[in-house]
């Protein structure tokens, strides 16, 4: 009963899959297989016979897996996660994080739960990371545009850098707009007016 669990991760997002894989290995799981492509998935499942399959809830390929499980003659049919529904908080957390999973019927819940909890927290961490990356990108874009606006003002209004920045900020406050939006307008106006 204490044999190592075999875990399969199916996620078309390679980075996220790698993050989950790493987490599982850190937690001492040695039988972890990662697949990114639907092609060959059926054969892999047949060969490996995983106890747990972790899958991205946003992939329409779940229906393909359902078909596969329906055809399998094996006794160890996989069932959707938490079919006993006693743990609604975990289910909610999983769906919100975008995780879905299949677990071989009969496997004790205590053995599976840490794996799913791990997948959920790594999925969440990944989304957070993506959001931070997007934020950082847009912050960088904003800085660039503000610098350009400052340059335009310094040249056309003969201001120092500090004065140009103060003017932008004052205008933003007066107009109740974001500094970057005002800077964007300055850059656009300069482009149109050819100054």
């Amino acid at each position, binding site marked *: 009963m204490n044999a190592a669990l075999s875990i399969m991760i199916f996620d078309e997002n390679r980075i996220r899959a790698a993050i989950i894989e790493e987490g599982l290995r850190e937690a001492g799981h040695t039988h972890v297989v990662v697949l990114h492509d639907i*092609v060959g998935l059926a054969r892999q499942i047949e060969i490996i016979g995983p106890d747990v399959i972790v899958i991205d809830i946003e992939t329409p390929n779940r229906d393909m897996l359902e078909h596969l499980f329906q055809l399998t003659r094996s006794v160890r049919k996989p069932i959707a996660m938490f079919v006993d529904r006693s743990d609604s908080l975990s289910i909610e957390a999983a769906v919100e994080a975008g995780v879905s999973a299949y677990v071989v019927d009969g496997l004790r819940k205590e053995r599976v739960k840490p794996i799913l909890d791990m997948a959920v927290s790594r999925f969440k961490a990944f989304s957070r990371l993506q959001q931070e990356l997007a934020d950082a990108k847009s912050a960088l874009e904003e800085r660039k545009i503000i610098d350009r606006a400052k340059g335009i003002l310094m040249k056309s209004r003969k201001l120092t850098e500090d004065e140009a920045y103060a003017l932008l900020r004052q205008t933003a406050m007066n107009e109740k707009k974001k500094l970057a939006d005002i800077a964007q307008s300055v850059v656009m106006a300069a482009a149109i007016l050819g100054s």
Partner: protein
Amino acid sequence: MSFIPTGIDQHKSGLTAPATIRTESAKLVRAGFIPLVDAAVLIAASEFGFAAREGIQIDLVKDVSWANIRDRLAFRQFDIAHMLAPMPVASALGLGSNPSPAIAPFMLGRGGNAITLSVELYRRMQEKAGLAGHEDALTNAKALKLVIEEMRAKGEALPVLGMTYPFSSHNYELRYWLSAGGLHPEEDVKLVVVPPPMTSDALSAGAIDGFCVGAPWNMVAVSREVGRIVAVKEDIWPSSPEKVIGARPEWAEQNPETLSRLIVALDRAAAWCDVSDNRRELAQILAEPRYLDVPFDILHRVLVGQFTTDPNGTERTVPEYFTFHRQGANFPWISQAQWIFSQMVRWGQVAYSLEAHRQVASAFRPDLYRNALGSRADIPVTDVRIEGNAEDDVFIDGATFDPEDIRGYVASFPIRNTGSGTTNQSDV
């Protein structure tokens, strides 16, 4: 707050009279759906005020797979969902990876599916069987048989055909069409699941050679010049069950009033969807990114039944390709749940037993439909009938289905799963 029946007059006038004015806040119903044209009644109920008139606010949530729909209904994230008619039947039988009970008190209309083959495969059928292009669905199936016999003789790989879900009308319709033409769906072709939005890509990449899915994906494949429509749902069995509104039984029990009002709202929305003058507006709303995100033109042509079946411009008109309300299109016949069961038995998904036969009857709930809508001329008074027995409702092979004799019905098909045959279904 009590549900006040909307009365006979309103039933007669149909759509104009609003329901009782309600002062209490609208009851929220969370509904999952898959972006397909047959979600139209649910979407129309929400978008065109039919739900609001009944004091209901439908919170529509788009999803990507039937497995998600099933699980999120089971895990109480949805109250109701747009579902394949065989899904509640499968659950009642304990089939699938999460057989959580679901009931179907309302059918979302008739029609919508079609079978499309790759242009290449169809051209070969034309050559082999001398098809001109306007042949009926059965002739097309027989032509496919000739080509497959040739493929076998030459040692070529057999065609791979896609459908949407193991417990889907598409699975059973595709199998019905193939076997009517003399082909064994488990020996002469390979069946795989392909999510509907991916069917055109899979076809053009050569991963599949054909598919059976709902609208608009067949038309999309033709417009992309990769597919050729060879049969529509009407050709196989016009009144065959398609999508339903599925609900969790305990939600239905705890919210009888909301469910009743919802059925009234869906009934009005379905009648509205059937008016041909409304189909343009319907296509416009369905085309929006939050719903189907498919070009308006394709949706409109699908809704009015104007098909281009072949990239060469061959046209076909199927005026009743979608029937949302007429002909009792929303009535959940228990005999149709039993027909689905018969196909599950036919293809070895479940063994026949009297107990199973009884369980199936609990999946469709005509009693809830009647409770909500009262007695009306167009609402049947019985729950069971012989299917395929009306002049305008015949099966492609002319068979009729008597729900009293499911075993005899299954045994009458020369092509079926006998439990021993080879299966080439498992690898993808």
